[in-house]
């Protein structure tokens, strides 16, 4: 099939950027979306034009490195699918496709379609863990975990940190990402000792990084390639409320 692509080109953080139109012909429906961009880039290089920069790595939907706004949808039209797993059979001959980077205050553009998502790492560093230095762990079976809790924890832990939730949110909020980790760890017995300091630390880091607040628009969960449910944000809010009430408590009270 033959396609018209309109792609965001921006040479660096200081450049204003613009949409540039490219024609790509003979696209196979079995190509992935990124393979289609590979084909474009090969042609650009041979024509002496700089290829389009985009982030990608595993190309199997798990590393979270790719992230493109495709026709205004984070990761494109197919639900539950990252851009690298999206295949061209989802498009029609003659289509025009707009391709843009994630746009959010907390994710500044580096070049073309590549953005800086290090704010996510800062949120994790502020509490998205269970403190368990190597060697200190008890026997794995000493703490059973109810299957329902283990399964729900897994569901939240499936987040790949791609940032689609932020890109889709009208407020540029990173609340679904933050809530997914808070939910995973607060559902497990191992996560209880740090449960309330964790949520405060992570939410503070989230706000400092320039993400907006959550107003329950729900766009995040729709575009999430791993289907992280919106109720994780409800869990985060409940924990956050309890945590703020507990501030200043004496231990054991």
């Amino acid at each position: 099939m033959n396609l018209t692509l309109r792609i965001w080109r921006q040479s660096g953080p200081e450049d204003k950027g613009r949409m540039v139109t490219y024609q790509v012909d003979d696209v196979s429906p079995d190509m992935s979306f990124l393979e289609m961009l590979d084909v474009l880039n090969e042609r650009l290089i041979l024509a002496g034009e700089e290829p389009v920069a985009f982030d990608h790595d595993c190309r199997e939907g798990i590393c979270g490195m790719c992230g493109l706004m495709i026709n205004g949808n984070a990761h494109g039209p197919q639900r539950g699918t990252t851009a690298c797993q999206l295949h061209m059979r989802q498009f029609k001959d003659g289509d025009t496709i707009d391709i843009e980077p994630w746009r959010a205050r907390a994710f500044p553009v580096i070049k073309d379609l590549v953005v800086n998502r290090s704010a996510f790492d800062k949120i994790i560093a502020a509490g998205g863990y269970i403190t368990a230095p190597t060697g200190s762990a008890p026997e794995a079976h000493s703490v059973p975990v109810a299957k329902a809790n283990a399964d729900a924890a897994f569901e939240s832990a499936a987040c790949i940190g791609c940032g689609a939730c932020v890109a889709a949110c009208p407020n540029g909020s990173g609340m679904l990402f933050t809530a997914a980790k808070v939910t995973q760890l607060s559902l497990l017995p191992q996560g209880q000792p740090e449960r309330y300091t964790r949520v405060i630390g992570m939410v503070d880091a989230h706000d400092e990084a320039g993400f907006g607040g959550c107003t329950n628009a729900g766009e995040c969960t729709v575009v999430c390639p791993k289907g992280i449910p919106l109720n994780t944000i409800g869990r985060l809010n409940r924990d956050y409320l309890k945590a703020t009430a507990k501030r200043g408590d004496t231990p054991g009270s």
Partner: protein
Amino acid sequence: MDLYTEGDPIADTKAPDGPIETRWERRRFEAKLVNPANRRKMTVIVVGTGLAGGSAAATLAEQGYRVKSYCYQDSPRRAHSIAAQGGINAAKNYRNDGDSVHRLFYDTVKGGDFRSRESNVHRLAEVSVNIIDQCVAQGVPFAREYGGLLDTRSFGGAQVQRTFYARGQTGQQLLLGAYQALERQIGLGNVEMNARHEMLELIVVDGRARGIVVRDLVTGEITTEFADAVVLASGGYGNVFYLSTNAKGCNVTATWRAHRKGAYFANPCYTQIHPTCIPVSGDHQSKLTLMSESLRNDGRVWVPKAKGDNRRPKDIPEDERDYYLERIYPSFGNLVPRDIASRAAKNVCDEGRGVGPTGLGVYLDFADAIQRLGRKAIEAKYGNLFEMYERITGEDPYEVPMRIYPAVHYTMGGLWVDYDLQSTIPGLFVIGEANFSDHGANRLGASALMQGLADGYFVLPNTIANYLAAGPFETVDPSHPAAVEARRDVEDRIQRLLAVNGDRTVDSFHRELGQIMWDHCGMERSEAGLRKAIDEIRALREQFWQRVRVLGDGDGLNQSLEKAGRVADFFELAELMCIDALHREESCGGHFRAEHQTPDGEAQRDDERFAYVAAWEFTATGEPSVLHKEDLKFEYVHPTQRSYK
């Protein structure tokens, strides 16, 4: 000119002697320690943030060392360990099905076709149980039974259920556990994290590894970084084949640059071709996607009995199907080790019985399992894998059997290390897939995650202390001649790549190199094929340096430039892989030489001549490498012909 010369054998691997069960404890006791106050004075560089690098960086920082960590991705959480699907082995024997440390040790040595080091493998089996404890404590959401205890399943090459898993995303969950421990240390200021940085050279001062040259991939800035020791955890080199299950960015540059500086490269020809991957669909293919080995627990592999039978699979009656793995290997059936399953698939396709549009595919059929257990149960076990398959192929595996074909997945070879995981350059340690040590000629399923975390959490943090006890070493600064030279080499190389401005893209060269390797150094190798490959690689490498086109400059994000540097190193590695494969005149594990097979087509080892590790020393570009042999001794598991029948 000879392809290689032979040097002195490797006499000492630093493994303690005595009963094998006591060796690791003895080593830990005899190793020197570093007291906590001195640890703060020492810096360790860790390159790579996968299971091995991430866990090592976090653990070293917890112990009190200052750590500098580097990865080429935008976040340490994206290292390719994240894509491991199936599971992680551990000798917990929670199933009461006869497992033990000794059995895991035995299975791994046998699975590796008697080409790994017994002492290392035993240690791996010992610490496997600690890994599960550690990960559970971190909140890794492993699959559990209704009683709240951990679930396990079977994997290839084993008759016990010792594989722990988190649905089809075990690697992701284990990596996020290590990543979170690492982020905690970053938050505490104990680790300096440098994402989007690529190591391009090793700095060796007075015979010791003392630093690296890195390029900031965003600004293009090249800097020299120093430490008391350097740890490489930069993964395997499967992308030499262009098409593999590796992530696009996976590369050999860090280990290859260290090899050029004096670290021996061991067993480069041992590559693992995984039997269950989605077949190639066309010339545009940029990578291959694995379908977890765990699927072989419930899926049955078959092809039509007749050549060229292109009926739809459901129209082929039961008695006209050949469930060839069950037929040839009745005791292990569909769960034979990977090398065996892959070659069997190649054989039936070579006979003209392959399926799908290219004829390079076999069926993996779940119809029986769905009938026996119900669709719901299959969904719960493999739902995400089935969805992934459908997204890629457009076919519904609940209705139509999956089509699969072998693809390059893992490399058992890597930098040579001693029992302490130290390379032949003092102060340079190598962990995870980047080293060669534990899997011999074939890795068993669910053992890569085990080895990465064993090295990173438990082995390296103990053994590196023995080296650092002599530190802190004299300070090195960027004006040291060794640092200046290493940096200049990197800059020159980048300028050379940019200056060619030829008429072919980097990818076009990489694809062509990959095809040569797949044809001649893939699932089956022969003397004639390997000699041809060596000539072709040399000619293509020359073309590369005359005709490659890399646009832009080195002063900012330039993804073509990054790729060009990696492919240039793959060319040099590819030649060494072929030489290694050519010199090893036997078949073992993933290395199958057409000239060396049993009458029924199984791998025929030659223990008399080849029970050794081939460790290669670099001399100069274009000059023959020197082969050093490390003899393998088998005191506990006596080499036999592997039989899974």
